[in-house]
């Protein structure tokens, strides 16, 4: 009897040792045992790329298009854009409760935090000091700059968070607005650091020194730092690392991805375990048998852009399609002009599986930045014509220096903006170009396109109400404050 009791007790004690209360997840890596090797550091940086674009409704996979770009003169919510929030943006009736803008805000800061995590954790580990580790920090800084550059333009004074959030104290989670100028200063600092990246990366598509310089030239341009913008873009042009494709179509060919014109792009590949480019699906026709047009959210605003292209502009029918061949019945269907840059003919039935990349910054834009900055500095000089004319030459249209050799500075500016509009349409650029020209220009352009609700405040978006509710240190964008309740 005693033995039984004894053995039972022994058994119980031995079992209690088998049931520890410490959690040791097997399927998850804890933050405590990560960021130890260069491979870990690389994985941390890869997660930031993932925040830039991954599945549908991520920043550079359609989200910016169906939110920000809807509020411009070139796009409107299509028949399948049934989300009231998307329609509100298209009509410029959106407010601080807009869920697409909230999602933009969330994803941007998610990416920023991923960058902060990578920068902090690689930097604080003394063993991570190889050139590759330093490069990884600089890639993270570049991506952080991309994200801050976006949100500072959308929302103005935004919280500038530069370190990983590791604590839940009110001070740690409720950052105040940072003045726009300070945000820009940080973006410049990050990009200057990122200039130290390799000129060519062994893996195509990763961030290079040229990408940092290119984005920096655009950051300078946006701040009207014309000289710096001109110099930095010239540095990129003179580096001879990048060039225009001879054929405009190659900018959007699967075979020529990450080619000489592509400085930094959102990477796509359909029908794999990665993601297709949803912009193809967003612009698909709804009436062609065999082509799934069920995600057709973005229509080009009738009577504007398509007609603005000269008929001999080589870009016109690469940018737009006015007919599709049905993959089921082989017939050709005429349609209203649809954006066609990302339509992948290998996956007609499911356009969202397109393997075409979306350029985030490419060499043609650097040429236009250079022209614009030089024009602002010195007027339409020969140097200023050079950039825009290289772009026009490739497009097969008359050179500006030939058609308008004595153009005024203002008209030259307008010509550059019109060229940007045509060259870079459907590349997440239009809203930024309209907004940086100021409220008058913005409102005039939108009203001309029939968007009569446009107001001066629309050069910014309102900071999402959720954030203002949770973070009492955060203030609404000044132009939107009258809408606070």
């Amino acid at each position, binding site marked *: 009897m005693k033995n039984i009791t004894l053995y039972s007790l022994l*058994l119980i004690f031995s079992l209690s040792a088998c049931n520890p209360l410490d959690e040791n997840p097997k399927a998850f890596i804890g933050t405590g045992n990560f960021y130890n090797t260069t491979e870990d550091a690389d994985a941390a940086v*890869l997660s930031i790329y993932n925040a830039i674009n991954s599945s549908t409704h991520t920043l550079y996979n359609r989200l910016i298009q169906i939110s920000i770009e809807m509020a411009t003169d070139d796009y409107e919510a299509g028949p399948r854009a049934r989300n009231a929030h998307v329609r509100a943006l298209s009509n410029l009736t959106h407010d601080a409760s807009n869920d697409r803008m909230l999602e933009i805000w969330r994803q941007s800061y998610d990416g920023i935090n991923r960058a902060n995590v990578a920068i902090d954790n690689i930097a604080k580990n003394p063993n991570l000091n190889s050139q590759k580790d330093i490069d990884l920090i600089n890639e993270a800084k570049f991506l952080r700059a991309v994200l801050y550059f976006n949100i500072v333009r959308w929302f103005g004074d935004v919280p500038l968070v530069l370190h990983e959030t590791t604590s839940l104290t009110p001070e740690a989670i409720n950052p105040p607005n940072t003045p726009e100028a300070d945000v820009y200063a940080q973006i410049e600092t990050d990009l200057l650091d990122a200039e130290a990246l390799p000129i060519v990366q062994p893996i195509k598509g990763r961030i290079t020194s040229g990408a940092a310089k290119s984005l920096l030239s655009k950051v300078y341009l946006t701040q009207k730092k014309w000289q710096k913008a001109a110099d930095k873009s010239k540095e990129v042009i003179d580096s001879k690392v990048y060039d225009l494709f001879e054929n405009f179509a190659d900018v959007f060919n699967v075979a020529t991805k990450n080619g000489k014109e592509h400085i930094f792009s959102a990477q796509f590949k359909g029908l794999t375990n990665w993601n297709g480019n949803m912009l193809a699906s967003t612009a698909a026709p709804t009436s062609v048998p065999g082509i799934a047009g069920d995600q057709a959210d973005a229509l080009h605003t009738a009577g504007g852009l398509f007609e603005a292209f000269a008929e001999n502009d080589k870009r016109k029918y690469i940018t737009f399609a006015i007919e599709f061949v049905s993959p089921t019945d082989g017939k050709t269907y005429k349609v209203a002009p649809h954006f066609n840059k990302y339509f992948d003919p290998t996956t007609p039935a499911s356009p969202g599986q397109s393997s075409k990349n979306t350029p985030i910054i490419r060499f043609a834009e650097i040429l236009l930045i250079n022209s614009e900055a030089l024009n602002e500095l010195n007027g339409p000089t020969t140097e200023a014509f050079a950039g825009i004319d290289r772009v026009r030459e490739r497009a097969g249209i008359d050179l500006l220096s030939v058609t308008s050799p004595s153009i005024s500075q203002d008209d030259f500016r307008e010509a550059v903006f019109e060229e940007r509009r045509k060259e870079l349409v459907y590349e997440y650029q239009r809203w930024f170009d309209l907004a940086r020209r100021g409220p008058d220009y913005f409102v005039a352009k939108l009203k001309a396109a029939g968007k009569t609700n446009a107001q001066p405040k629309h050069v910014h978006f309102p900071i999402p109400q959720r954030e203002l509710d949770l973070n009492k240190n955060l203030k609404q964008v000044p132009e939107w404050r009258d809408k606070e309740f």
Partner: protein
Amino acid sequence: MTKNINILLWISILLISAGINAQNTQATINSTLNGTVIDQVTNQPIPGVNIQIKGTTHTAVTDLDGKFYFQTGQKFPYILIVSYIGYVTAEHTATTDFVQISLKEDRKELDELVIIGYGSTTKKDYTGAAETVSSTALKATQRTLESSLQGSVAGVNVTQTSGQPGAGLSIRIRGGSSIQGGNEPLYVIDGFPLYNSDVTSGVLSGTPTNPLSSINPADIESITVLKDASSTAIYGSRGANGVVIITTKKGSASAMTVNYDFTIGQQEVRNKVDVLDAKGFARLRNAALYDTNPALGTNQYLSDAQIAALGKGVDWQEEAFQKGLVQNHQLSISGGNNQTKYAVSGNYYNQEGIIKNTGFERLSGRVNLTSKISSKARIGLNLTISETKSKVAPAGLITSLLSMPPTATIYEPDGSYTLRNPFENIFANPIATLNERKNEAITDRILGTIYGEYDILKNLVFKVSFGTDLIFNKEKSYLPSSIYEGLITNGEGKIGTADSRTWLNENTLTYSKVFGEKHNLNVLAGYTQQNSTKEFVTAGSQQFVNDVTYYYSLQSGNVALMPSSGESTWALNSYLSRVNYNYDSKYFLTASLRADGSSRFGKNNKWGYFPSFAVAWQISNEDFFTPVKDVINSLKIRTSYGATGNQEIGEYQSLATLSSVKYLFGDQIYTGFTPTRISNDDLGWELTNQFDAGVDVGFFDDKLNLTVDVYRKTTKDLLLAVQIPYTTGFTSSLQNFGTVQNQGIELGINTALGNTAFSWNSNFNISFNSNKIIALGNDAEFYTFGNYILRKGESLGTFYGAVTDGILQTADIATKGAFTGNATPKAGDRLYKDINGDGAFTTAADRTSIGDAQPDFIFGFTNTFTYRGFELSALINGSVGNKILNGNAQALELYNGQQNASTSALDAWTPTNPSTSTPRAKLDPAPIFSDRFVEDGSFVRIKNITFSYNLPKKVSEKLLLTSVKFRVVGENLFTFTKYTGFDPEVTNGTTISPGTDTGIYPASKTISGGLIVTF
């Protein structure tokens, strides 16, 4: 009163014995006596009954066939005293040498056994608030064991989360107190504590199979619901939502009994939702198109002639619903002797859904064994093995059924499926989905416990048990290329397996002793440990050459999907103790303490301590009470206070873990890692303190019993995914946050009237619970979650939306246009109240609380009538004052002509029909959640009617059977409600949004017939 009953009993016994022995009443000397003792109701022989000749010490005991024998010097007539545990002791006058004595089961309410945590007691001795489900309610249940709680226990609110066969129920004991930490009770099945949490790999679309559906309800012997802290604190960190204790049928020391129970029935949808027919829809679409572009005329969709030529069109609900067959076969064998007792059963249950190609099957077997291996030691086994198979309606199906336009067709002219809604709102053809899509789950479960008990000392029992709960789930999905869902992927097959392996070890010492005749002491101490691991794996592929092999041949797809797997483990170690003491069955005291260590919490907060204390006074056992005992035979008052916890937050929630993400360069995919949350070392228990006071009264020898309880339950440190600014990089952080209070009153009345020929038993219960948020963390006044708000002073499940204010009429556009929420208001737009008074309506700023999902009271009323072999029982239950968010109606009242609409569209505003309730048709209405879609969910329904008939013993014996019983059951046959959706007994399965009815598989009504044969 007792005397009267005794006299009645006497008379009946005399009559019966007189009837049997009418021929010979002659007295003899030196008689021999042969007799049998049977159960008065079942006519089963009762072994082990003690028979004593009155006034002598001469006794006999019945054998396995209930037979006994005397040889005695007594003369006829003499009196036999017949006694057996659980039966009313009877006196029988023997007048001849053969007697048949029928014993009446002792139905005294107060001696009823109450199964409690780690033990059992009698109702009379119990100090807490616990209620046992009546055997009537248990018998009425064939689907899942939880449904027997519906309407049968005060304070328990049971709501269906889906009518999908095999799907689960939402159970709230004394209101829900947690926001996100889980509100479902803990189940303890034959001593094994488990939560009814889904084991799924995520491959299945729609409602996952309820794990408790693997338990065969016919195996259940008893269900006890523990409600107050004194009852539940012994389960510590898992007791806060109440505990449901289930025991299964055990064998008894009697001859083998074989029982076969067969039921067959039919189910159908209780109520269809009214939607437009083809003509109505065509007119609506014309109107919506005209509204957007008047220049194109009033008949942009179909001309009046075309509309006139339309028939009713496709009734999509009619196409999808069916009459489903339900059948149940149950074979049970039990018996035993004084050493070993056994009960073995097998069950096959098959339920076709009321929606085509949905259904549920269960095959289960159970073995319960107990054996005395020595005078001091006993061992036992409780084992269930089951397999369930489900065919599940995919998510979104019901919404599609309601929204699919009646002018759309199921098939194209060429015989292929119409892929989707032909209009702007894209969703798949639901009939194609039902017919072609594969969406299935198979779950195997082994739940078993072995235990040993050893009497260390006369009063000290040591019990050790080892249990295991193994659940293996496999989910299979195939989307063929012939339907919309599989079009883009050209066929997609997926298989997922998920398994959950739990082990349990419990070790308890129980000491019970009576000191000095009046001091009754019972002490329990124990140590338990439980550990559970879940794992899952999924695989899949796309781009199939054809749709022949479904998910059986994933390698036949051209594109493999990324496989995925995962693992999680939790551990719980506990010390528990309880002292029960009573003095002379008058003054009762119970104290308990449990210490729980859980892996789930932050490293600073692993252990929690949960004490409770209760006292009771059995006033009716006092001498001064004797004078009123004829009226009030028992009276007890009791009160308790204690703490319980809630740990249902999932694993690893306090840790900062990383999750993997991908990126692509060139053709190569790379893997990155990113943190998923900010660590919270302080994450701890949700703590509930509960006060309860109750009174139990028995009138007229327990013919009428009354129980009243009042309680207040305060839950603090609520586990909540607190929203944090996105600037942190995260959405939310799980924190202990805020306080919720439930208080209420429960009343239960039981009556037992009648005699052996006719009896009437009833159970009435009603419970009022009020739920209130006392505090939210971070000094917040409120939090909003979708259509819900959490606000101090309001209850959980409060709806938050706009308030409608009629329809904008042509004359009012200038004055009231700002209250439509439209930038360019037009007549016929819906008007909303300007809640914040800023002169305009905006969706974001003009929301307010518009009702809540908490009922004012719920009730159940069961009546059982027996007359000889006939039995009729009926359960009426109801809920009053709860609101339902009718999400289906919200979709059906868009009136956009892009999908079907409610028949209310016939009254839509037009210049010639200036409706004041229905807005005009338009193509792109903003879907605004408003009080329009918050409906009164009150209902009263006849939940169950059962009529059964026992064949007279004479007839059944001729059939060589012990007993034969026929049964007819009707469920949900009559319902009284104003709710316009499918069924008012409905809730969303998620904790945070109770009372939402969007796309939920509708409830059914059932008629079934059955036969129970005992060999």
